């Protein structure tokens, strides 16, 4: 099989995802995959490449362009004992299935007083910086963070992509996976993945860089913008800690609080719009729970409250940049 783990070979983010899904399909005969063009084509980005050849249409179902039905049928499968991986061709299109996610699937366990659970993973390519324009660039995680009953993860490395996807596919609850499509094939992120079965548990943040002058909390593609800013600041003698949340719901507050005890300064960065975005959630929780550790007003950098425009200068204008992060970080450090 093309996705078999090979020792010593460095693998990209996309391969991590592919291996995770293929391995879980192998070990869990109850797992069904559904989505648009996920069969013969292997999905718009190739994440499901090879699945239909191995498991056939019974378990790898090409769906009509009907996001609401895709999610709703998946809910019915879960109700009747199956687990389902749903691919959104782009995470932007998830809005077409919104009601079936937030009102049907996310509430199922709650409204049945625990009788029914929904082991459903909804995953799809997300994120801007690639010229995808308004409808192929979104990070709409806040819609769902505000809808109780859905877990949300955003891995940023091949290792996490594979380990978290496997954990999500084994999780008894609905899990939304924001796959940053600009990381899918990034060469500099390639790494050797463990040969043995492993998972990365949901709800645990990862400290991607240690430092004691400032804590930057981020996730997704912005992890790399923040790491670059941290490198810039290192040259000026400042040590910035970068926390990759990886999991938004549940949120690993403890790791952030521990970091703030040391750095006393907080900057949160995400590429979603500002108002009611997840960066704001992190800020308010830390204002409530870590106020006494803070020596500077906590701050955030987000996309402007605009859609994501198409051509490059416009797109970059509205999104967080390394320069912005560096500048804001310096202000906080020197506060």
């Amino acid at each position: 099989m093309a996705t078999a783990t090979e020792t010593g070979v460095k693998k990209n983010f996309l391969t991590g995802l592919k291996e995770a899904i293929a391995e879980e399909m192998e070990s869990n005969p109850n797992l069904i995959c559904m989505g648009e063009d996920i069969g013969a084509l292997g999905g718009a980005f190739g994440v499901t490449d090879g699945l239909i050849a191995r498991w056939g249409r019974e378990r790898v179902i090409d769906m009509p362009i009907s996001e609401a039905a895709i999610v709703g049928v998946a809910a019915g499968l879960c109700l009747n004992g199956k687990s389902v991986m749903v691919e959104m061709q782009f995470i932007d299109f998830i809005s077409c299935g919104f009601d079936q996610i937030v009102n049907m699937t996310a509430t199922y366990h709650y409204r049945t007083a625990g009788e029914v659970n929904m082991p459903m993973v909804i995953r799809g390519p997300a994120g801007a910086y690639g010229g995808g324009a308004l409808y192929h660039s979104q990070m709409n995680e806040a819609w769902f963070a505000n809808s109780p009953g859905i877990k949300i993860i955003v891995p940023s490395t091949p290792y996490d992509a594979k380990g978290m996807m496997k954990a999500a596919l084994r999780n008894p609850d609905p899990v939304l996976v924001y796959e940053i499509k600009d990381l899918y094939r990034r060469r500099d992120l390639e790494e050797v993945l463990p040969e043995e079965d492993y998972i990365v548990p949901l709800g645990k943040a990862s400290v991607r860089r240690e430092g004691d002058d400032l804590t930057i909390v981020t996730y997704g593609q912005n992890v790399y913008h923040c790491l670059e800013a941290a490198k810039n600041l290192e040259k000026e003698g400042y040590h910035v800690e970068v926390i990759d949340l990886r999991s938004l719901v549940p949120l690993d507050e403890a790791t952030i609080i521990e970091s703030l005890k040391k750095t006393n300064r907080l900057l949160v960065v995400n590429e979603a719009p500002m108002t009611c975005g997840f960066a704001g959630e992190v800020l308010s929780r830390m204002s409530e729970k870590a106020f006494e550790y803070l020596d500077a007003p906590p701050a955030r950098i987000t996309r402007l409250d605009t859609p994501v425009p198409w051509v490059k200068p416009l797109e970059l204008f509205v999104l967080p940049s390394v320069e912005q992060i560096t500048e804001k970080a310096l202000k906080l450090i020197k506060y």
Partner: protein
Amino acid sequence: MATTKTDPDQRHNEGREPAKLASDLLTADDYHELLKQLYMARYFDVRLIKEKKRGRLRGTLYSSHNQEGIIVGALYGLRPTDWISPIHRDMPAFFMKDFRSGWDNPERVGMTIEEVCGQVWGKVTSPGRARDNWSHIGSRAKKIIHSTSMLAGTIPAAVGVTLADRLNGLDSVAVTFNGEGSTAQGVFHEAINFAAVEKLPVITIIENNQWAYGTPTHYEYSLEDFARRADGFGIPGLVADGQDVLDVYNKVCQAVEFSRAGNGPSIVECKTFRSYGHGDHDDDRAEKYRPEEEVEEGRKRDPIAIMKKIMVEKGFLSPAEAAKFPAEGKGASEVTDEDFPPEVVAYLNRGVESAVNAPVPEAHEGGMWVFREEN
């Protein structure tokens, strides 16, 4: 029965022997059972309307008065292992599912009257521990899909449960109940389209009661018989007289047989009329949008009266017996318990008593069961 250029019945029977009516195989006992079930559904409805007026119930009550023929007729054509997806106006369906196996048969695959009353009264005995209101209950074990307020919202789930059953080698079907108002929802079309593509055994019942809350059908769609929508999906569409429990039974059996044979989904439009307002909250205001004469006309074809007439014609009921328990044609404020068979009243009394005496869930349960697992 509507006959159009693409007569849905003809489509349905294409290449097959003309279907015998399923009701031809019913015995006199079946007829009596069906009549008793019509009484049960009616009594449940009028009793709850009275309980609500007495102030003993919370929430909104969506009356199924005059639409019992659809619930009873459709359920009577199913196997215990089949799935149903009732909505707000089908409350009796939750406890009447698989009544054919015996109302008090412990093996019956349907909710108990105690569970359904527990839900109506908001008590711990509710299958959903009273977390959501009115008809928003269900049961995986009893094969009842948990309803929500989003109309047509559970049709995809009905498609999904049959897909899972088929993967497991089972030939169960799913019957979804829907008002004609829900047919304008996008998910209605998405789900039935996919069921048609996959030939999944999903029967979509349209309870066409002429009114979507305050909106008449001519503002909802531009078809004579809604069942013709089925042509657009490439599936059969049948039209039944929703006031005639036997016609509903026959059409649903026809659709079920078609599905069970692997031919895929179908739509059964049951023409009926809503006696009351959308919910009890607009009973007093329904006259604002619906003329009183229309209501009087609509209530004339009472499913209990129609069934009695058929039974008298068939000699299953004497005219004197038919005159007993005259619940037909009466509204909730006009009937008394004496208008119903005593076993029907006793059955519901048991549920009401159980619900009244059961405790309300503890407050802290409001914070429970968001996730199965913390991470």
